[in-house]
């Protein structure tokens, strides 16, 4: 099993979630994060003092998937989160050894 973490632009969240649902994903977890990368924030002035907006708002999606689904999910996210402009984000795939559904105690792929 893998834990797929995708960092995307906030306004793409709905689209990505819908695409993943269509691709058969039944669950995911989302959080608000702030990203630093090649996409640079603007230089702004506050009360006469310059500052650089360094962290931009992003959304992180975590989806635990069976190995069989990894490729599909990556592809789905890549397509639905894509705008082509800088700052679109990343997809990271982490190794996951175990998974448990708290309600039922089911484990492994049954728990996803």
């Amino acid at each position: 099993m893998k834990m797929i973490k995708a960092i995307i632009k906030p306004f793409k969240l709905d689209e990505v979630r819908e695409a993943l649902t269509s691709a058969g994903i039944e669950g995911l977890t989302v959080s608000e994060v702030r990203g630093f990368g090649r996409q640079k924030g603007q230089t702004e002035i506050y009360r006469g003092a310059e500052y650089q907006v360094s962290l931009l708002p992003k959304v992180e999606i975590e989806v635990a998937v069976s190995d069989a689904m990894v490729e599909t999910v990556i592809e789905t996210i890549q397509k639905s989160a894509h705008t082509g402009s800088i700052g679109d984000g990343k997809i990271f795939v982490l190794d996951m050894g175990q998974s448990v559904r708290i309600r039922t105690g089911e484990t492994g792929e049954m728990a996803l």
Partner: protein
Amino acid sequence: MTRKTLLTTGALSTLLVAVAAPASAAVDPETTFVFNTLLFLVMGFLVMFMAAGFAMLESGMVRRKNTAAICLKNIALYSIAGLAFYLVGYNLMYDGVNGGFLGSFSMWNPGAGEAAYAAAIEAKDQAKIAETFGKISETGYAAASDWFFQMVFVATTASIVSGTVAERIKVWPFMIFVVFLAAIIYPIQGSWQWGGGWLAELGFSDFAGSTLVHSTGGWAALTGAIILGARRGKYKDGRVIPIQANNIPMVTLGTFILWLGWFGFNGGSQLALGSASDAIAISTIFVNTNAAAAGGVVVVMALTQLLFKKIDLTMVLNGALAGLVSITAGPDSPTIWQSALIGGVGGVLVVVFVPLLDRLKIDDVVGAISVHLVAGIWGTLAVPLTNSGASFVNQAIGIVAIGGFVVVCSTIVWLALKYTIGIRVSEEAEEAGLDQSELGLDPNPPMGQVASGTA
């Protein structure tokens, strides 16, 4: 002394002067009429704005998931209480009480006097104008201005209840309770004193309503809190689990608005502005009202610092209000220092009673019982300390009679609601928050919508 005759006395003294000393400097009756009316309107809009103060205070004290629900309750209760007071309450409180136990069941209307006066002016009949004006200048103010001023008081009473029972009560049953409170419970007990009923004849003294408004609201809140039960998770394994305010600046803003409104509440209760004496009295009331609140603030700051090693701000804010409630029964007689002390004792009561109620597992979300009921009783008892016209015995009789009446009536209404349509939201609804369960607001709006921002 009734709230209405209070005014008559004030206006009369003016008239006496005017009549007895035609060459004197006294205010002419029509000017007096305008002044009195203006007092009701200006002080009335200040009291009206207290509804916003309660809404902000309460929305700051609850958890975030219940903020919208408490806002709804506050604007709705202000609306509904006003309409109920129009339909039933006002005349039940003020119409033909005559030393008795209640007025008449009828709708308020501005009365024939003003209509006749308007007709006379229309007809440009000078004699008729003078005659009809003579009639309306006996009360000395526009009827509607008085109605407005009395109406905002009943709204205050209802506001007190909403804070205590927040975060778990259903909207509609609460509104039904407000109807009974504003149409029946508040007016009947109010008629005993301000309507010129038996308490007024006895010699009870409650200038602006420590007992009639604040304790009444407090008793209704107390019975509500007990019958409704505590919020889930507030008391666990014999311990009190603090549930923090979600927005302290809002609580502060609400308190400041209430403090502002209290100048109207107490100042307007002089009921007349048509003479220098009235102007002096209202000025005294302003400074005493302010001093009592300040006393409450300072005492609670010192006390929480000593007891808890840190200042407890929400208690300090409660302390300001407890000071205000304490002085409300007699803001015209003490000196500034006495007022500050009276208010300071109100502050002490907050520091004592807020934890005490928690130990009794009476869950009062905003501290309204300590602030309005307990400090209201104290303030009423404190009147004889500076006002020789009042007596402890009469004060106690008034407190007990009104307390008993309000507790019995409130209990009946709360229980009737509980065992019919129910008063408490489900466990899941409480968990999810009333904003979602009662108002259908997504507690969790789409991230793209709120992810960022400067607020």
